[in-house]
């Protein structure tokens, strides 16, 4: 990766000559328009006026040489996953039921980005509330830039899709609950960096599952992803689960790594081949061994889906046609009728299924066996990871078991089969561990295949170093 390809380089040049910012922005706006015309569907509704207003303000910053001018992201256009609130911009989390919701506040990550001189370009498409592995449970389906008949991956499909599609300088803020940064990064050949749970504030994130959601970075290279993560991370008193440690972009020490044997097993042959080949090359730098995580393999999907759906079903209860979003006529209607009408009409099938599953798993009579049990099993699984981390600095596996599937293939999958595709990404997400997906190579038909590295809590530095080594 050349230095001229990095955001850092762009920012330095932008500080010398503002026309660089203008040209880059004009070009990317054009791309956004093209991607819409071609129905590639990466971008939600585009508010050009809003962008131009920001540009005008930024020009003033350039003239005044104020703090934004010296910001790490000066002049950089950023796309934002729809679930992340941007003041005054429609923020729907990919759901029809929130149509028209214009938040009265910026998410903390947006505030950070703006303070560093970034321009908020647009919202990117996603599975409704994050419910999906392929960004097909969407209002409009984003198409993989490598092959438009294939999925971008989900749920941050639009973010990764646009990152791969654009030829301009750009950064994408994504979000991961069960793997929604790593998966699309893998399918679209980008770098997807998911931090430790709590390192990036969730204030302003429309919730999927509050103990699992993590905002993170999607970019063309490791340097850029890490830079974005550095900007958006840090303690936030508005998010009670926010950790005191932010992420600082610096090298981490890696000596010994281990391949998670059991995660390789169910993957496609081609995926195994490409990933193993890449890992072979890494033996120059690290000691590479093997490790087994049998409990995670057996139980992490079950525990994850119980917890995620339980929390999600409570988060989605507020969406009932009052205060924001789709609203109807209340005259003469009993609230049961009014709520049910709107919810039944506006939620997609996947959302309904997950609400039902989550409501069930925490109902009296089932709560102990499912909800509470899953929380105990989670402890077990975190402990299994921590045991492995006593010996190894990073754990490696393929990000996804396949390359990006075709849409007609996806249609044939049952919901259960969909869930099973998350087998590699869910364990780290359930445990709140930071992880990165880097492109390891391509399949025979030129589709990207991602290699994932998982680090212990708060060791994002190692992921940064690792990703740079893999890219080189």
């Amino acid at each position, binding site marked *: 990766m050349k230095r001229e390809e990095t955001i850092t380089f762009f920012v330095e040049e932008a500080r010398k000559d503002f026309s660089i910012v203008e040209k880059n922005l004009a070009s990317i706006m054009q791309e956004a328009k093209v991607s819409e015309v071609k129905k590639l569907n990466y971008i939600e509704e585009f508010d050009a006026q809003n962008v131009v207003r920001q540009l005008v303000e930024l020009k003033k910053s350039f003239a005044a040489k104020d703090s934004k001018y010296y910001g790490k992201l000066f002049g950089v256009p950023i796309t934002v996953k729809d679930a992340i609130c941007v003041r005054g911009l429609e923020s729907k*989390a990919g759901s029809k039921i929130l149509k028209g919701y214009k*938040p009265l506040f910026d998410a903390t990550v947006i505030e950070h980005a703006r303070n560093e001189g970034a321009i908020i370009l647009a919202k990117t498409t996603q599975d409704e509330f994050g419910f999906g592995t392929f960004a097909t449970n969407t209002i409009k389906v984003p198409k993989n830039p490598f092959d438009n008949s294939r999925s971008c991956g989900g749920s941050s499909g639009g973010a990764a899709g646009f990152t791969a599609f654009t030829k301009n300088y750009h950064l994408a803020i994504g979000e991961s609950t069960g793997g929604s940064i790593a998966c699309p990064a893998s399918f679209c050949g980008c770098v997807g960096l998911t931090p430790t749970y709590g390192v990036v504030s969730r204030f302003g994130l429309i919730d999927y599952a509050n103990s699992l959601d993590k905002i993170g970075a999607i970019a063309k290279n490791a340097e850029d992803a890490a830079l974005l993560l550095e900007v958006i991370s840090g303690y936030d008193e508005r998010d009670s689960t926010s950790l005191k440690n932010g992420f600082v972009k610096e090298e981490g020490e890696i000596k010994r790594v281990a391949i998670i044997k059991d995660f390789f097993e169910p993957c496609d042959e081609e995926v195994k081949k490409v990933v193993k080949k890449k890992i072979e090359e890494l033996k120059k730098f690290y000691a590479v061994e093997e490790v087994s995580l049998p409990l995670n393999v057996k139980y992490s999907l079950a525990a994850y889906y119980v917890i995620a759906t339980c929390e999600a079903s409570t988060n989605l209860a507020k969406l009932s046609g009052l205060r924001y979003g789709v609203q109807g006529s209340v005259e003469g209607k009993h609230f049961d009728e009014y709520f049910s009408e709107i919810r039944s009409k506006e939620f997609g099938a996947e959302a309904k299924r997950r609400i039902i599953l989550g409501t069930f798993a925490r109902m009296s009579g089932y709560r102990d066996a499912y909800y509470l049990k899953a929380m105990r099993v989670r402890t077990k699984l975190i402990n299994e990871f921590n045991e492995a981390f006593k010996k190894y600095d990073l754990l490696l596996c393929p990000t996804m078991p396949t390359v990006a599937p075709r849409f007609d293939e996806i249609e044939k999958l049952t919901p259960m089969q969909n869930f099973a595709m998350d087998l590699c990404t869910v364990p780290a997400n359930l445990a709140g561990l930071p992880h990165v997906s880097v492109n390891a190579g391509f399949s025979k038909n030129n589709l990207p295949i991602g290699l994932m590295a998982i680090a212990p809590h708060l060791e994002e530095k190692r992921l940064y170093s690792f990703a740079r080594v893999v890219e080189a």
Partner: protein
Amino acid sequence: MSEETKVIIGLEIHAYLGTESKLFCSCATNATMPNTACCPICLGHPGSKPVLNEKAVELGVKVGLALNCTINEDFFFSRKTYFYPDMSMNYQITQYEVPVAEKGMVTLPSGKKIRIRRAHIEWDPAALVHPSGMGKSNYVLIDYNRSGLPLIEIVTEPDLSSPAEAREFMNTLENILSYLNVLRPNTTMKVDCNISINGGNRTEIKNVSGYAAAEKALTFELARQKLELKNGKIIHQHTRAFNADTGMTVELRKKETEDDYGYIFDPDLVKVSLGKDYLASAKAELPELPEAKAQRLMKEFNFSEYDARVLCGDFNLGKIFDKLVEKKASPQISARILTRELLAVLNHDALLWSEVSVSADDFVGLVELIEKGKVSDKNAKAAVINYVSGDKSKPVEFLSKNNLLISESIDLDAVVVKIISSNEKAVTDYKAGNQKSLNFLSGLVMRETKGTASPQKVLEMLKKKLS
């Protein structure tokens, strides 16, 4: 039914904690115009996140300690999910598995001990207005000023055995909470009342506003259940509402969808770990509570247990007493005037403290006069009654204006002699053994002195002179 009806009552009481801001956001706790003290958090806007008010925790711990509960050093908050138009998120943030306090005890003036199952912190939903009255409106109007206010919920074991005893408990509880100074002023307690008789199913009367109403609701419901049983019907477990206008409870329509609350640990919040030091200092900082104060008054001023309890059993009464003692008024006389006369007129006229204007300063003079024997008990009583519900003039002013003070210039001895000499027949009758005649003579003396003389003294003098 000639046997004693065994009544079992349990109460769930909701009271507003006296914080400056809401439980999980910084909105003010007082606003007049609708929807003017709200923010994305208490409006339930997607993307917003709750942050716990440390004062609410402090007050919750205080309540738990005052109710002799075990405080859970580590506790957390849960989501109680159910759908209603007054809910900003269709789940309430409350406490389920681990409340801040549990297993406490409250002792009633009668000496009976009522167990407290738990006390926990939760937030209030929004306020609903029914534009054409409840039951007749086509829609509701919602005001989120109330949404997010901190509540403490206190749950008793079903240890109460009559509506009157339930009222006694609520008064005792209110008194304790007043001493603690933890509640929002000028707010009404809401009570859910559970009652069953003779081991049958219980009915729950939800959301009754205030203690008087709760007692009325329980009284009605007890009578209703008795009547049902008398008519051979079985009481089934169900929920009712209390209509304050009619004084009756009505069955609430059984909802098609009985919400299962599906409690989960609220993952937007984190555990609270108080630690032993915090608890120790919270205990040490507790103000003197009614029970302890009663004990102290008994020791310090030699009050009877009964008098001490009455004095401490009403927070406002106790405050006036404290002020009087501070101003060096006689504690014994102060106690007597307050517990006998002041309390009597308040109860007789069914007045709330909020409806009267009573100050300790206005009693200082009266107590002094009584101490010096310059006013009779009867006139002192009259002065108090007038002060509270008459023309409200200060007691001392009232007494001097109406010439009810015993001045030194009245020669009681001369008056007694005068009456004796002008009522020969009565004197003779008394000497013959007719006690009534003595009272007759005494009455004449009192009339002559315009009631300012001390009746005891008069009788004493008469007996002496006629012996």
